[in-house]
């Protein structure tokens, strides 16, 4: 398991290759990557992500550990950025390795669902209209109910 919270950009492809390498007993690798969106109707200048040093890492470790208890996984990777981001920048990625594809998919979805609303990150968007904290979505809270 590898959990990283960092301000610096990460190389999705290089991380994906490093994660996939050397798992000859794991047939399935799933990755999810979140990218800062730029919506035509209200162009985004930048996004700032705040986090809670200490608690954020612990929360991510807890979520990843729970995924490992629930599915048969070879490995889990979570990388999440904080600080300043621009449209098109990668915010975060998760990766799961498992012997079978269903486990790799379900575990990645579980990680994402909990990461969305149980890991201490807060997004603020800067547009021509000013700064606005991103509101949590009911659908993200609802997504937890399926697990």
């Amino acid at each position, binding site marked *: 398991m590898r959990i990283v919270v960092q301000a610096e950009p990460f190389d999705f492809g290089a991380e994906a290759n490093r994660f996939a390498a050397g798992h000859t007993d794991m047939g399935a690798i799933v990755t999810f990557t*979140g990218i800062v969106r730029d919506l035509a109707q209200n162009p985004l200048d930048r996004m700032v*992500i*705040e986090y*809670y040093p*200490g*608690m954020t890492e*612990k*929360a991510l470790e807890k979520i990843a550990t729970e995924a490992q208890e629930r599915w048969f996984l070879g490995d889990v990777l979570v990388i*999440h950025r904080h600080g300043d981001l621009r449209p098109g920048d990668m*915010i*975060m990625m998760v990766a799961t390795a498992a012997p079978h594809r269903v486990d790799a998919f379900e575990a990645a979805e579980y990680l*994402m669902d909990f*990461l*969305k*609303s*149980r*890991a*201490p*990150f*807060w*997004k*603020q968007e800067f547009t021509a209209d000013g700064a606005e*904290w*991103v*509101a*949590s979505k009911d659908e993200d*809270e609802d997504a937890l109910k399926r697990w």
Partner: protein
Amino acid sequence: MTLDVLYFAWVRERIGVPREKVETSAATVMDLVEELRAREERYAVAFGDLKALRVAIDQELTEFDASLNGAREVAFFPPMTGG
């Protein structure tokens, strides 16, 4: 007891500081919230709608009726929006 009290996102903006030491004898998070609300308008505003807030004691998510017994760090923040 002396608690480290932390604020994040718009809670931090409304209160005006990211963290502060609070001397309190509050038994629960709710008692602490009431003390802070009574202090100054900015706290009353930040803690206006508790349904819009989350709380962690010593970096673990908890509820507003949780006991502060043994707590060292309490954090208030809006619902998380990671990922």
